[in-house]
C-alpha cells in the first residue's frame, strides 16, 4: 500500500479529530453517561476493529438522543475512529486482507494487496479505483452559508446528511450525463465548464439550482425543514418537486438550472398505494421522457429514484445480494442510505462491505461561480474510502439509476428483470410494460358479486362501517 500513501490520512484542515481533541475539557461537564461512553469507547479503540465498530453504534445512538455540542464533538471524534478502524481493513493494512472485486457505480475494479500480488496490473487496479472514487462529487455538511429562508440556520450540521447524500447522487447523475462515466477530475486547471457548472448548482445559496435551501423549500409538503431529519422517500419527492419547479421557472429564461433529464420517482400514488415492491413502468418512463421533450416523442435521458424500506426493524438480509447487484448495473448511481440515523452515499461494494462517501464532515461553505474555471474544488472531493457492513444498513434507503437513452433504459430493464428472477419471490422492485388496469378481480365463483371496484378500505380503520370484516387493522 506504499504506493498510495495519502489514503488513510484525511485532509488536515477539516479533520474532525482536531475538534475531537478539544472535546475532553468541554465534555467533562456534560454528564456522567458521556464519560462512561468515552471510557468504554477508548477501551474499545485499543482492542479490535470489530469492537470499534460496535462502539460506533453506541456513539451514534448517543448522538441521536442528545444532539448537544459536547456529545456531538465526541461522536464525531468517535465516528472518525470508527471509520479509520474499518478503513484499515479496506486498505489492506491490517491482517484482514481482501482481494475481492470492488464494484463501484457499475464498474468493476480488481484490487489486490501487496502481499498477494506484486503485479503492476493489480496496483493499477487500486490506483484506478481510487482515482474514480476521488473524482466523485463529495457533498458534506457545510457551515457559514446564508440563512435558510426564514430560519436562523446557517449550517446543516447534525441534520442535513440525507439532503447531502441525495445531492451527491444527483451530482453523479449530472456528471454521468454531461461528462460520462469515465470522466475523472482533471489534475490541472482550468476545469471544464460542465464540471464547474455542476458544482455551482450544488452551492449553498438560493441562487444555486439544487442547493439545500431550494431542496428544503421544495420538500416542505413532505416534511423537509431546516433542522429536521428526513427519510429517503421524502427526499426523492423533494427532488421531484424541485426539478418540476425549476423547469417551470426557467422555461422562459434559459436552460440554466434546468434538470437535463426526466426524473422518475418509482413509487405509488401520493395519497395511497399498495406498498409492495415498487414497479418500474416502461410506459410511465416513456411518458415522462415525452413530457421532458415537450411532447416530441423521442426518448430522453432519465434518472430513476427508487425509495425503499427493506425490512421492519432492520434490513432483511435476503435483500443484501440484490442491493449489491444493483451496483453492478452500468446505470448505477448508488444508494442513499447508511446506518440508522446517518445517511451516506453508498457508491460501491466489496464482499459484504458497502463503500461510501460520507457527508458527516463539516466544511465551510464555498461559492463556486458558474464561470470560474479556476475555482478551488478540493472540498468537493474525498479520497478517503469508508466502508460499513451491508447488514448494518438501515432498511430505509433509495437506489438511483441513470439511463442515457432508450437502449440504455432497455438494458436497465432487462438487468432489473434478471434481478427479479434471482430474487426468489422478493425482488427490490419489478418492471412492467404498462400500468396494470385491473387492481381487483373477484373470484367469480366465490364472490358475492356486490360490484365493489376496490377492496373497501372503510373497514380498515376498524370503524365497522362495512358489514364484513375482510380487513382489519390491529
Amino acid at each position: 500500500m506504499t504506493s498510495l500513501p495519502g489514503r488513510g490520512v484525511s485532509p488536515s484542515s477539516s479533520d474532525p479529530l482536531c475538534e475531537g481533541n478539544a472535546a475532553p475539557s468541554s465534555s467533562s461537564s456534560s454528564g456522567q453517561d458521556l464519560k462512561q461512553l468515552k471510557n468504554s469507547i477508548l477501551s474499545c479503540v485499543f482492542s479490535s476493529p470489530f469492537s470499534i465498530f460496535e462502539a460506533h453504534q453506541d456513539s451514534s445512538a448517543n448522538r441521536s438522543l442528545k444532539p448537544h455540542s459536547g456529545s456531538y464533538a465526541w461522536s464525531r471524534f468517535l465516528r472518525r475512529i470508527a471509520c479509520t478502524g474499518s478503513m484499515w481493513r479496506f486498505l489492506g493494512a491490517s491482517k484482514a486482507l481482501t482481494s475481492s472485486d470492488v464494484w463501484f457505480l457499475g464498474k468493476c475494479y480488481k484490487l489486490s494487496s501487496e502481499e498477494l500480488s506484486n503485479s503492476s496490473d493489480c496496483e493499477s487496479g487500486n490506483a484506478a479505483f481510487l482515482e474514480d472514487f476521488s473524482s466523485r462529487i463529495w457533498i458534506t455538511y457545510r457551515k457559514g452559508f446564508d440563512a435558510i429562508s426564514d430560519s436562523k440556520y446557517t449550517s446543516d450540521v447534525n441534520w442535513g446528511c440525507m439532503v447531502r447524500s441525495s445531492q451527491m447522487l444527483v451530482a453523479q447523475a449530472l456528471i454521468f450525463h454531461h461528462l460520462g462515466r469515465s470522466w475523472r477530475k482533471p489534475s490541472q486547471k482550468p476545469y471544464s465548464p460542465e464540471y464547474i457548472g455542476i458544482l455551482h448548482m450544488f452551492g449553498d445559496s438560493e441562487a444555486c439550482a439544487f442547493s439545500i435551501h431550494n431542496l428544503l423549500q421544495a420538500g416542505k409538503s413532505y416534511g423537509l425543514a431546516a433542522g429536521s431529519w428526513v427519510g429517503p422517500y421524502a427526499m426523492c419527492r423533494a427532488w421531484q418537486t424541485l426539478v418540476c419547479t425549476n423547469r417551470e421557472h426557467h422555461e422562459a429564461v434559459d436552460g440554466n438550472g434546468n434538470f437535463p433529464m426526466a426524473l422518475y420517482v418509482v413509487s405509488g400514488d401520493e395519497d395511497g398505494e399498495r406498498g409492495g415492491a415498487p414497479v418500474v413502468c416502461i410506459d410511465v418512463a416513456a411518458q415522462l421522457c415525452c413530457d421532458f421533450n415537450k411532447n416530441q416523442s423521442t426518448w430522453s435521458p432519465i434518472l430513476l429514484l427508487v425509495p425503499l424500506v427493506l425490512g421492519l426493524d432492520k434490513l432483511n438480509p435476503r435483500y443484501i445480494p440484490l442491493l449489491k447487484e444493483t451496483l453492478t448495473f452500468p446505470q448505477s448511481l448508488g444508494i442513499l442510505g447508511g446506518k440508522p440515523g446517518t445517511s451516506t452515499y453508498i457508491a460501491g461494494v466489496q464482499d459484504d462491505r458497502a463503500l461510501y462517501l460520507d457527508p458527516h464532515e463539516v466544511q465551510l461553505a464555498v461559492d463556486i461561480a458558474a464561470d470560474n474555471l479556476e475555482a478551488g474544488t478540493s472540498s468537493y472531493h474525498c479520497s478517503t474510502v469508508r466502508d460499513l457492513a451491508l447488514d448494518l444498513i438501515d432498511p430505509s434507503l433509495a437506489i438511483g439509476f441513470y439511463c442515457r437513452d432508450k437502449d440504455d433504459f432497455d438494458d436497465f430493464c432487462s438487468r432489473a428483470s434478471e434481478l427479479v428472477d434471482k430474487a426468489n419471490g422478493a425482488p427490490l422492485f419489478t418492471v412492467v410494460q404498462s400500468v396494470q388496469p385491473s387492481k381487483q378481480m373477484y373470484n367469480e365463483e366465490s364472490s358475492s358479486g356486490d360490484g365493489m371496484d376496490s377492496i373497501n378500505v372503510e373497514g380498515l380503520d376498524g370503524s365497522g362501517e362495512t358489514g364484513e370484516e375482510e380487513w382489519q387493522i390491529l
Partner: protein
Amino acid sequence: MEERRKEKGKEGRRGKATGHSVDKFSRSNLPEMEKRKLHLPPGTALFVFVNNTLPQTAQLMGSVYESYKDEGDGFLYLCYSSEKTFG
C-alpha cells in the same frame, strides 16, 4: 414470529385478512391503501410487509395468503411501515 407483535407505533401498523376475504379477493392484487386511513399524511412513504419482505405488487392475494397465512389462526398478517429519517 417477530412480525406478529401487535404494534401501533408510528413506525408500523399491522392488518390482517381473513380466509373469507382472501377467498373473495384471491385473484386481486394487493389492496390499494389510503394513507389517511393509516393516519399517514399524503406524501409520506408507505410500505407493506408480509413475512418481513415487500410482496410483489402484481402478486395475487390468493398466492400471498397461501404462502404466508398464519398456521395458527388462518389470518394473513400484513405490516405497514413508513420510513426512518436520517440527519
